[in-house]
Structures are given as structure tokens and as C-alpha cells.
């Protein structure tokens, strides 16, 4: 069987790539498209290291067929920064030391961006439950949660009435 030809908008740029019919979006991004920032931790949708935003929706790209990206927008970790300017989430992760080995960080930042897009001022509890699909083995999550809440506060400072 020959490969499928997929056209997608990845991180704001039109991209064409070839993939096997059964190939995951994760594998296509990492191999055919060459974006290795998104990671495989489990390939069963349990660890969140492969998180990307597909058509505006946070998905585990290991459970999405590459072919499903046809005609869709895809945002990966490589598309989070705005040119040379880090996204506030990226900046806060650095300031709060919210990473140690860093392999889960791309997934967390993409997932956190999806959170703040949907809920600009989440509580600690809402943040923890949203990010419950992202595993981190190094940090115990404390500094990650602080970084996300701080990024939210910076983007949308709470104004008292």
C-alpha cells in the first residue's frame, strides 16, 4: 500500500508530508515533518508527552492518525513561542524552575496553553485536574502548577471590582 499525502497547517505554516495509513500523528510529526519537540512516553495516550493542539483541541498525538491532520491546524511545542519571544508559559516555567529533566515540558506547555485558552483564570484545582493527563516524574508538579498559575495571572491579571 502506498503512503498517504497529507496537507496540514503546522504551527501556522502549510506543510505537506507522506505517512502510512496506520501511522500516528506523533510519529509523522517527529519523523516526516522533523518536529521532534513532541515526545513519545507511552504511545497509549496515558502520559501526555505527545500533547498537541489539533484543530483547536488538545489531543494525545500518539492516539491520532497522521491522516486525521489533513486540512487541519496543528500546534506543537515548536509553535508556542512567538518568533523570538517566549510565551508567558515558557517564561514562567523557566523562572519557577518547573522542569528538571525537561522531557515532559513540551507536553505540559502545550496542555497548559490549551487550558489558558479555554479558561484564562483557572484555580489551582482546575489546573491540577486539567493537567492530570500529563505525567511528570521529576518535579512532583508543585513548580509546574505555580508556573501555570503565574502565567495566567500575568496574561490576565485579576482585577478587583
Amino acid at each position, binding site marked *: 500500500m502506498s503512503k498517504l499525502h497529507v496537507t496540514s497547517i503546522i504551527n501556522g505554516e502549510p506543510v505537506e508530508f507522506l505517512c502510512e495509513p496506520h501511522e500516528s500523528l506523533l510519529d509523522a510529526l517527529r519523523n516526516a515533518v522533523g518536529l*521532534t519537540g513532541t515526545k513519545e512516553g507511552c504511545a497509549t495516550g496515558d502520559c501526555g508527552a505527545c500533547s498537541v493542539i489539533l484543530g483547536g483541541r488538545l489531543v494525545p498525538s500518539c492516539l491520532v492518525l497522521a491522516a486525521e491532520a489533513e486540512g487541519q491546524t496543528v500546534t506543537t511545542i515548536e509553535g508556542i513561542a512567538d518568533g523570538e519571544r517566549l510565551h508567558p508559559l515558557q517564561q514562567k516555567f523557566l523562572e519557577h524552575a518547573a522542569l528538571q*529533566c525537561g522531557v515532559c515540558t513540551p507536553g505540559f506547555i502545550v496542555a497548559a496553553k490549551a487550558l489558558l485558552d479555554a479558561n484564562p483564570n483557572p484555580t489551582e484545582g482546575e489546573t491540577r485536574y486539567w493537567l*492530570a*493527563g500529563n505525567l511528570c516524574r521529576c518535579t*512532583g508538579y508543585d513548580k509546574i502548577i505555580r508556573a501555570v498559575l503565574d502565567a495566567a495571572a500575568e496574561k490576565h491579571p485579576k482585577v478587583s471590582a
Partner: protein
Amino acid sequence: MSTRTFEHVGTRPIRHDGVDKVTGRAAYGADVSLPGMLHGAVLRSPHAHARIVSIDTSAAARLPGVKAVITGADIPPNSAKLMLGGEAALDLHDMGDNLLAHDKALYHGHAIAAVAATSLDIAREALARIEVVYEPLPPITSVDAAMADGAALLHDKYKRNIANRMEFKRGDADKAFADADVVVDREFRTPMVHQGYIEPHACLARTGEDGRAVVWCTTQGPFVVRDASAAILGMDPAHIKVIPTEIGGGFGGKIVVYLEPLAIVLSRKTNRPVKMVMSRDEVFRATGPTSGSKVRVKLGATRDGALVAARVSLWYEAGAYKGSPAGAGAMCAIAPYKIPNFFIEAHDVVVNKPKVAAYRAPGSPIAMFATESAIDDVARQLGMDPIEIRMKNAAAEGDQASYGPKYGPIGFKQVLEAAKNSAHWKSPRQANLGRGFACGFWFNAGMSSSATVTLNPDGSAAVVTGNPDIGGTRAAQALMVAEELGIPVERVRPIVADTDSAGHSDVTGGSRVCYATGMAVIRAAEDVRDQLRARAAKIWNVDIADVGWERGKAVPLNGAAKDQQPLTVVQIAAQMPHTGGPVVGRAAVNPPMAGPGFGAHICDLEVDKETGRSTVVRYTAVQDVGKAVHPSYVEGQMQGGVAQGIGWALNEEYVFDANGVMENAGFLDYRMPVASDLPMIETVIVEVPNPLHPYGVRGVGETPIVPPLAAVANAMRDATGVRFTELPLSPPRVLRGLTAD
């Protein structure tokens, strides 16, 4: 040393590799590729215990796209031993047999053959075409089954499957028990658990026509990869270059090699680069989790709370080959306390499970889960506060450790005081929560490290070591160089180099990078400083004895050159060609292991008595780290260890079926803590300087995983009145325990 004020050490700069890591640019093991590369895959045993009768790879080799197939016959049998600075000399015969089985499959998942093909799909298809004839044997899946009369033997040389036994003793424990007022005697069990690093093992090997190999891999020890691969394959280590990629977690599990020698052989046979990446399933089944265990603890105390006798018997699963951390467990079990009479025995028991590897303070969490739970029971029987009883028995400088030598300056009492004075301990106990307290201990490995510091013409500096950065050690090293040279930390570039470019360093692990490699970094920076003084002397035309150093500047002393202004690093660097050429500082160290770190944790636990589900509501970790070079990463190490310990206590376990097959080899059912399981984790850093290190550093990384097991179990006891002695305290077990009486 303890009175030195620091300008950079103790601050919290952004880590130098941070931007790459938050943008996805940093390259981890599976992120490296080469043109023309092949993909490797491993065939694994479907039996937990079996004789391998025959392997026929011909059908696999014929599959289009398959370029090479190898079996144990391609790994030469090896009986030499190699001391690799881990728990014990790693036996190359065992390691080679683990890489690809020879006569027996010893666990479900044991590697039997490997394939290199033009795609991963083809490689996996090829595995299905390899025909292996097995003669299944009875699988042994617990220490009790292993030691039972008539049990099948994994290796004929180990009677009753006991590969090793160790003892530590002092005084007369039996007599002291007879004289004790209170005796607690319990048996504890812990399951096999995995380090749980999010990044699976991965490597890319490329051998050339000259037989030399370059290996990119995710590892805690590039020199271990080189030396172990060379020894196992009969290659000259000088012909292997290992380039460590970034590493996505290790915790001890990425010290042993599983893929690299296979990739080297496959690359040699195909004359193409070969990439091998483990799946999560393979990581669980075929890397190195830590031991399941059975531990008996008997403690005796007098009415005033003095612990007078201890008897600890440890049985640790080694997995398929000898070498569990039972000895380390024996050394840690009562290490924080002065108990005059004790008998501690440790047994290394082989079972049909993957060969265990180091997991963060290897052996200590298991042993101290038992002893810290038992101490809690002793305190309860005496009506004593859990911190007070430990304070009464606390070891201090000059006391003889339970494993023999006298302690130098240690901070256990200070840690207990800090815990007692913590906001958490002082906060009122809530009626529906249980509060548990427990302590932990781990050594602080020394061993070999090298460092070079080079100065650039603009006065910036690079520091090069051979230690992969798992948790922020690049940032710590940059702080050390900044401190010694008096330059901004942003102008220091910390680099992790390959085995050809860096001097030898032992592993990133053992809580040793900030201590030992840091010591080398500081000495190399001091070397640079001495050279800068010599350069200033040349510029001023004075003797070097007349040149001092003050906060980043060479200053004239003793009236010589008295009309000269101090020279900054930038100024001296600009003149390097005129004053003797480049400035390169270097150092190599091999410090002893000394200055262990003690921890004490407090856990508030809510137990739902209807579902058996527990929630950690509040948690505080106190630890003596000697000196926190970058406090954010010190806190992070403490919090991460706490999370792993809580997972070990509450939910994590390898579940095996009757055939020795792991039933939960994925993150859904191997349940590690997620963000919604945990509260913020409070940290209290105590600093009792380690006299061996210029800044007083003690390693921080490992101790924090030790106390949580007993802290959670003690909180459970407080919340429910039931003493649980078997982990994990998962809902089904808790419910059974609550309804048992």
C-alpha cells in the same frame, strides 16, 4: 567555610539549557537521526522461565528490508567483572546474558534476538518470523517461592535462589530484647516498582569501516556505556565514542545498558546507523525496576524511649540475576539512630523478574519503610511523640554508624528540630486527617569526576564535564564558576561533553554531581583564577605573590604595583595572547563518600473509609543538603522524590499473573501520581556543611524518596487505627484492612 558569604551560589538564575527545553529544541535519546539509518527491534521471551532449545532466524532474515538479525550467539560469553561504581561490580557475564539470552530465558520480556530493518514496521514484522523453541520451566515470582523447598533454581550455583547474604551486628540483640520494656515485631512487604522515567531508553549507533563506533544515547553515565559496551563486545573502549543526549529522567535506571551494545553490533553487521528505541511496554518488562521485598523488623525500647535492640531481616528480589540493593538497605535501615545492640541480615534472592537496577537511594526506601513504621509503633506504645523518640535516639557527629564508621558532622538532629518547628508540624491536626512522620537516610557518593574551565577572550567562560544534566546541574556548575571567577552567571556556558571530549566522570547519580563533579568544577575554576593572577603579575611586572584576588578582580598586594588599578577578568582575558596564551583550568577529583543527608517528612492524609482511597492533603519535606547551590533545583529534587515515594506508598506496583507475566505494563494501570493527586509540597532546607566540599554541599537527590513510604503508612495508622505493613496502600488493600477486624 560555613561563614563564607556567597554572591552567586544560593541564587536562582534561569538554567542555561532552559530555553532549549521549553521550546522543544533540546534533543533527547530518540530525537537523534542520521541519513540511511535502520531501525532496531528486540524479540522478547513470552515465558518467565524457560530453557532456550533453538532459535531459527532464517525466515526473518529473508524478509525484504531486514538487514541483520542477531542472537545471544553474537554476544560473546564473558566472565570478567568490571567495577562500574554502582552497587557492586557489575558482572559482565550477567549483563551480556541480559542483553541477549544464551541458554535460558529468565523473565518475561528477556531479550532473545534483535533485528535491524529499513523501518520499524518491518523490524517488528521480522520479529514475528523468528522461530524460538522454548522448554518452559516453573516461574518463581516471589522471595518466598524462591526459597521454598524444592523450588526451581534460576541458576544452579545459587542454593535456594539466594545469591548473596550480608550481616551487620553489634552487641547482643537477643539479650537486649529480653530486657526491653516494649518490643515491636512486624513483617513488611513492598512490591516491585519502576523508576518511571517518562523517556524510554533510546540510542543510535554508527560503526565505521574502521570498526570504531559512535553512540548517541540517553544515559546517566556515558563512560559506563562506553566501558560496558567495550567489555561486553570485546572492543577497545578507545574505539567507542559515546555522546550523551539530554536525558528524560533516570533515577538510577539508566546506568545499566540495554540497547547500546545491540545497536553497535547491528550497525557493524549492516554498515549503517541503527536506531533503537524502547516502547513503554518494554521499559516496564525489560529494564531494571527495583526489588519487591519482605522485611522483618523487631525493635526493643526501654520505657524512657531509648531504642536498645533491633533485629532486621531483609529479603530483596534481585530479579533474574544477582545484585539487589539489599546490602544498602541493611546499611540504611537504622542509620539515623544509636542503637547499641542489633543484628541486621540482608538476602539477595533471584526470581524470574527483570534484573533490578538502582532506583533513587536503592534499598533504603524499602528498609526504612519497615524501620520507620516500627519506630512509630514503639512511640505509640510508649505514648511518645514521634519526633521526640527520634531525637532521643538520634545519631550525631562522633557516633558509630550502624554500618560501622563514625559519623563526621551530620545534620540529623537539626533536621528533626526543623521538622518540629515547621509550620506544618505546628499546625493543628484536623479531625478527619491522619498525620504521619518518618525519617530517611542516604549516602552521598564521591567517586571520580573531571572538569575543565576555559576562558574566552571576552571574559566569558565555559565549563565542561561528562555528567548528563538530569535536574539542573548545569546551572549549579555555572553558579560555581561565576562564584569563583566573579563573573555574571549568564556569562558561564556549562557543557555536557562526550567521552572523547571530557575527562572521565562517573555517573550522574548517587547524589554526586553537585558534590563530586561540583568539587572538580570549583577546583578547575580556582586553577583559572590562579592563572589569571599570574597573568596580572606579568602585566604589572610583579611577582605572583604580590597579586591577590577580590570578587572578580586581580588586586595588587604588599605595596608592589601600588599604582596599578585592579584588573577584571574581562581585562585580563582580553590580553591572554600577550601574557602566555589561552587560559584553561582543569581538575580531577575522587573524593570519598562522606557527609550523608538526612531527611524528615510530615504527611497529612485523608482516608476515605468507604472507598479505601487516600489523598495526601499536606506534605512537608525537611532535609539537610549541606549547601543549596541553586535552591530552586534543590527544592525540585526534594519535591520529586516525595512524589515518587508517595506513589510507591499508595498505588505503584508490578502486578504479575501466575505465569510471571506483568499485567499492568503501561501508565494507565501502573499508577504514578498525577497533578491532581498531590498538594503543593512544602520544603525546608537545612544546611549543615559537609566539611569535604568547599561549599559544604551534600547530595540532595536521593534522600527525599526514602521517608514518604513510612510517612504515608504512619499517617494511615493515625487516620484509621490500622497498621498496614504491605504496600501499596491502594484502595482494595486499605478496604480489606479496614474491614478485617
